[in-house]
Every structure is written in C-alpha cells, then in structure tokens.
C-alpha cells in the first residue's frame, strides 16, 4: 500500500503553501466562475474537461499541462461540497500521483471567511509526469460483480435515500453524500466519521467499494471520507450506477412501500 498522504488541507496550511510557492492548486469549477475570482495562484480544470476523456494518457497530458510533476503537492477545491474536487483528486491518484489532497472547505466557505481571492490567470509552465496506475483504488463493474458477495467486501451507495430505496446494486448499503460533511467542512471530523462507520458495523479492514449515480463524484467524496477515517482499502466504482444499469446488471428495490409520496419535493 502506498503511503497515506493526508486527505485534506486546511486553509492555513494552504495559505502557507501559497506563500512559499510549494503547491499547485486546482480549481475545478466552470471556467467562467474561475475567471471571476479564485484562490490566488490556482489553475482551472473544469471537471467537465476531465470527464470528456479521462483515459490515463489524456489525464497525463492534462496534469503535465497544469505544471504537475511527480513531486508536486496538489490541492484541489470546488464549490460543490467537495464532490467534484474529489473526482479530480482521485483521478490524479489513480494516475500515480500521491501528493494530492482536498481543500477542506468549499470555495464559498473560503470566501465566507474573508480569505484571499484573485482574478488573474496563473501562468503555467508544463512539467513531465510519469504513469504508475493504481488499480487498487479503482473498481470496474466486472470487478464489483465478482467480489461483491465476498464477506469482507462492502459496497456503499452514496446517492440520496429515496434513489437508493428505488434501486441499487444488490447488497449495497446506503450512506448519502450529505452524511459525509459537517456544517463548515466538506468532511466530518475524523472521529465522527469513524463513529458513524462503527455504528454501521463496517470493519476497518474491509474492502470497500463506493459508487453513486453517474460519474463517481459523490462516491469520490465518500472515497476520501473513508480515507480520512483511516480505512486503507477503498475503491471507487468510477462509472457508477449509470454504467451498471446500462450493462443490465442486477438491481434491487425496496418493495411494497410508496416512500416517494413522503417527499415534499
């Protein structure tokens, strides 16, 4: 197992790193939001651009163009409760870049605290990065199907409760993504996260596979939540439920109850 780099970076540390120029900050919001303002010296990588083609070759190119080499410390942020940032961070990790973490708050929270923002583009000189794929953090549909019955494997669905009740992968348990955050941080304090998982009887040594609706964002956040609670063996089913359904894999639902009619939406 790779050394566990820290999952999140707090505002103070990041500001320190900005001062000594020892970090590459990635803003994954849309280009027009980034243009308005962003954390000083950050570079923009809208999630959509990454998702358009997230093959290792393409991701490598993107990373290099963002000035990331094997040693670069990377911090990623978004304004979508950390889910988009998680997807980008995970993708870099999968490529083999270990020095990546999430800003522990959203951009709105950063601004809300009155911290520095900037609107000038950051100049980037591209770097060279290697590829050392990390298959132990990725799950495909085939892999999930193969291992999901195994005793030490736990599949976690991070969509909202009603969506889960309506359909999910057989055997999956539900931890809605909202459960992962606290009021002012994208992730709950470690001890709280641990308590929740302990209540759910999820053993520390389990192999965990997380998934969500379509592109692995909400479940990406769950990936980091589990990491932050010291769960060493977590995989992201990156193509998630959308692919699972598309492949006509088995699905189960909670029967005989009209739970949707309890929603006031």
């Amino acid at each position, binding site marked *: 197992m790779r050394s566990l780099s820290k999952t999140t970076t707090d505002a103070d540390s990041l500001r320190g790193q900005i001062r000594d120029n020892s970090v590459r900050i990635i803003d994954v919001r849309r280009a027009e939001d980034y243009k308005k303002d962003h954390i000083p010296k950050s570079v923009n990588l809208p999630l959509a651009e990454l998702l358009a083609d997230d093959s290792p070759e393409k991701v490598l190119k993107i990373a290099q163009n963002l000035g990331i080499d094997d040693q670069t410390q990377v911090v990623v942020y978004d304004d979508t409760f950390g889910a988009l940032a998680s997807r980008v961070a995970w993708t870099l990790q999968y490529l083999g870049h270990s020095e990546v973490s999430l800003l522990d708050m959203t951009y709105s929270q950063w601004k809300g605290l009155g911290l520095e923002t900037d609107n000038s583009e950051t100049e980037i000189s591209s770097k060279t990065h290697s590829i050392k794929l990390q298959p132990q953090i990725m799950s495909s549909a085939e892999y999930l199907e193969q291992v999901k019955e195994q005793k030490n494997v736990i599949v976690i669905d991070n969509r909202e*409760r*009603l969506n889960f*009740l309506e359909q999910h992968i057989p055997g999956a348990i539900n931890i809605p993504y909202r459960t992962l955050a606290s009021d002012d941080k994208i992730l709950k304090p470690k001890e709280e996260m641990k308590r929740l998982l302990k209540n*759910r009887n999820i053993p520390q040594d389990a192999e965990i596979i997380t998934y969500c609706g379509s592109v692995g964002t909400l479940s990406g956040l769950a990936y980091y939540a589990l990491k932050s609670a010291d769960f060493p063996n977590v995989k992201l089913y990156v193509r998630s439920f959308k692919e699972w359904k598309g492949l006509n894999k088995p699905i189960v639902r*909670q029967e005989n109850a*009209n*739970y949707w*009619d*309890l929603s006031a939406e």
Partner: protein
Amino acid sequence: MKLSTITKQSRQGRKPKINWGRVEESERFAETVKLFRQGKLDSDLFRRFRLQHGAYGTRMTDDYAMVRIKLPAGEVYPHQLEKIATLSEQYSIGSAHVSTRQNMQLHWVILEDVSEILRSLAEVGLTSREACGNAVRNVMCSPVAGVCPAEEFDVTPYAVATAKFFLRNPLNQSLPRKFKFNFTCCEKHGMARMVDIGLIPQIKTINGQPRRGFKIFMGGGLGNRSFVGHQLEDWTPEEDLLYTSIATIRIFDRLGDRKHMERNRMRYLVNEMGWEQFQTLILKERAIVRMTQSAIVKLSVDETPQKLESHIRISGFDDKSIPDGFSRWRKGNTFAQKQSGYYSVSITLEAGDITANQLRALADISKEFSAEGYARTGFVQDVYLRFVSEDDLPRLYSKLLEVGLANPGSLTMVHPIGCSGTTSCNLALTNSHRLAKEIQRKFIELKLDEDEDLRESSIKISGCPNSCGQHQIATLGFFGGGGRVDKDMYPVYQMSVGGRSDGETMLGVTVMRIPAKRVIPATLKLIEVFKNNKKPGEDFKNWIHKVITGHADSQVKSVNDIKQILLPFTETPSIEQDKDFYADYGSDSSYHTRTGKGECAA
C-alpha cells in the same frame, strides 16, 4: 402573558429555555442496536427500548426506522429547524413530516444511524425520548394558545411544565399503553375530548378573585374503537392539575389492561369500569396524591412574560408589489390575534411533508417575521407563525411563495390530513398520504378554499381502521381497506360524515365504502348536493350535522340518502376497462394489501 419587553432581533434567532435532550441516550441507543444485531438482545426487549427512544419500525423492513422528534407544545426554534433540515438530508429522505400530534418525523432512517440523529437532536435541545411506546407522548398544546381571541388564559406554560414533569419520569416508563395529553385554548380549537386527558382553560371567580383552572376531560380517544371523553368535574383549580395528572396515570398504570393489545388504552378501562366508578377512583387517588406529594412535587410553570422582538423592517411593501393570491392566502391562512396589530399564520404542508430547504427557509422566516422568534407545529400537520405584524403579511406571503409554502386554504377544508399510510406504516392498507395530497391539489385548483361554506369543515384520512389520520372527527372521514372484484383487488375507503372535535364532539357516522379513485369525485358530488339543498347561511358542516342527527330540512334527510346519492361511485369496472381503478395512488401496478406488525404513525 405580558407583552412588555421589547428586545432587538438577534441574527441567530431566539434559543429555547428548556433542553429536552440527553447525549448519553444516543450512546446507549448505538450500543443497544449493536447488541440486538448480534442477537444478544431479545427482539421484544429491543423493540420496547427502541420505541421508548422514539424510533418506530418501518413498513416491510427491519433495516429502517422512523425517528419521531417530540416538540412539546409544538414549539420549535430556528436553529432546531435548521438541524432537522440537515438531519433529513443526512439520514432520511430529504423531507421531514409534521405529525398530527405536533411531532416532526424523519422517515426511512437506517436503524444504525438513529443514534447519530439522537445525538444531533440533543445538541440543539431536542429529544425523541418517549415519543413512541407506552409512555406519556408528546404533550400537545393548541398552536394558537396565547393568541386565541376566545381563550381565557394561555395554557402553553402548563403544557410545557407537564411535558417536563413526565419526561423520563419513572412514573411513566412502562404504562399499559401510550398516554396522551392535549391542552387546548378554547372549545373551538382543539380536541380536549378525544384524548386520555384533555384540558380547556377556565377562569373562575372565587370570593371576588379570578382564579385559573381547567375543564378536564378523560378517557376519550380515537382508534379502532373511539370514545368521547368525560368531564372530570365542573372546574379543576390549577394547583390540582399535576395531582390530577399523576392520579390518573397511577390508576391507569395499576388497572389498565396489559394483556389485550387491542384494548389497553385508558378509554377502554373507563368504558369497562363505567365513568362514575372511574371518576370516583380518580378523585380518591388525587386526594392521596395531594396529601402524600404536595410537599415535593409541583409543576414548574414558567410565568415569565414572553419577550417580543422588534422587527428590522425593510422598506414598506407598496400595493403594486403585493404578489398575486395574497388576499386569498390572507383569508384562508391567517387570523387576527387577541393582541392588536398581530396576526397568526398557518402554513399548510401537503400531508405534513416539508423539504429540508423549506425547513431552512422557515427557520429564517420565523426569525424575521415572528416577534416571538420561533414556530409552532399545529394539530393538522401544519405549522404556525405567530406574532406577525399585520404590515408584514404581504412580505411574509411573498417569502413563503418563493419557497413553495404559500398554498392557500390552510384553515379551510382544502387542507386535509393524511396519515403516513403505505408510504411507511406497517399496518397501512392504502396510500392515504398521497390521497390527502391529491385532494388538496384538486381542491386548491377548484378554489374551494375561497368557499365560505366549506371553511369550517375538514377531511381526514387514515390508511387503515386505526385512526392516526383522525378520520372519525372529520366532517368527511376516510379509512383505507381493500375491495375485490373476483380475484382482482382495488383500494377503497370507508367514508364517514359529521365527525367533530369541538364543544359538540361526536364521531362520524359511517356511510359506505368508496373506491380510492372515486373519493375525489364522490366528495365533489356531495358538496354539489349540499349546495343545491342548503338553507341560506348554512355551511357544509352544519348541514351534514343536521342530516346525521335527524334534523335535516332539505331533500337529503339521512345518511341513507347520502348513500343513495353516492351509490354510482361504487360501481366497479372490470380490470380491462379501467386498469387505473385497480391501482392505488402513487403506484402503477395492481393493488394488493400487505401489512406487517403494527406500530402506527400519523
């Protein structure tokens, strides 16, 4: 209550004086769930423990629970609303449900997460302790107590003190069955006669001195068999409130039926024993309680005058900018308080459901608009904001409109009650919850909220013969069941008419079974017949009352006549002719009944 102190509105909103929560209980809950899951705790014992902590079972599954958050007297503060909003997104379905007993419920919670909810509730001073199970349930209090023009004094402090006295009190940890208190403000707003102990405030002049006391009713209640409560005595002075309550609970604890689940509520004891004998027992027991306990126990009634906050008023609303529908809303959702210049506003929720975002908006709105700085849940799955300045009503309306909380007709018949039914209840036979929503949408579309004749009437729906939806005290009551054509089943409702819970409390009279998909047209038909037959000035409620009590002076003279009129609605098409007839609301497949073990929940 004196309305003297004016303080400045704070940004965080007002905080409650009483902390109902206990963090330790959440830890104990988590441990107990573990023991149960490991098979080290018997399932009946676990069930009792779970209910005592406010967690109900859920339809057809052991994996999920419903957490019932107790709101004594319905009081809920802005930061508590915000917390409930967050909890609903984290652990429930993103909506919460306001019950007919002023609780807020979170449904479809994973049993293993309940302890996390209990912990968070305790952090904001809330609890679900004794919200279910055989204990004194949430102590209810009229949502307009303190502002009702007809009340003699504000009973809220007495309700809150009663809740405080009994919560976690050993007296009430294993009663034969649940026990319900209901404090009302006046004869009209409440249901003093339909609970174990119901109270109406009454001032009596003794030796030239006005003294506070109550009319106390006992042994009423709705259920598979319903009874109307009896008045204990002419007048009960406030000092005797606690002694009477303790005495009643002691008698019930001692003599109540612990064997027969279906008749263990106190009303059956009263019925079997006969009222006179029960009454004598209570009065005797009270004398003993008074003698032995007077030195030690007392209700801690909080008499400090309520603080009203001055408003930060953003420039006035000129007539032009008042959004459409304001006067309709004002007419059907608000009323003038006894304090001049102030209004109370009832917010109607579809079958009591409210989204997380609406809860957050409600938190902000209660900070901004209510001079008392908090909200109160009502008796009909609604929420009240009180002490709203008359000038602020248009702005409040537009705020509510923005978040989808401005449906008209909250105080009229277009606002029905529907218990949870097949959305979550194990005993449910039909989707009563959705039917209530369908009726409300249809009736608002037809603008029936603007019809003065219908204002005082009510529609209440239960998903099975248990009366969580209180169908027996509704002008039009419905409870769900299954009908059959050969081997095909379809959802039906037993309809009753003329129920009421006011000074002339009576149970509705059974009319007939109406297929679920015909309930709306049958109801509209009955309204049409009423319109054609009513005397000038007569409203729907009174017209029905006359019909069922044999005083009708129109063409429709009896329940039987109503039956004849509605008969066409009971015709059953074949499944080939009308597939929809055989499916319940909210479901596109054919209807079948399926029930589990009972722990009901409106």
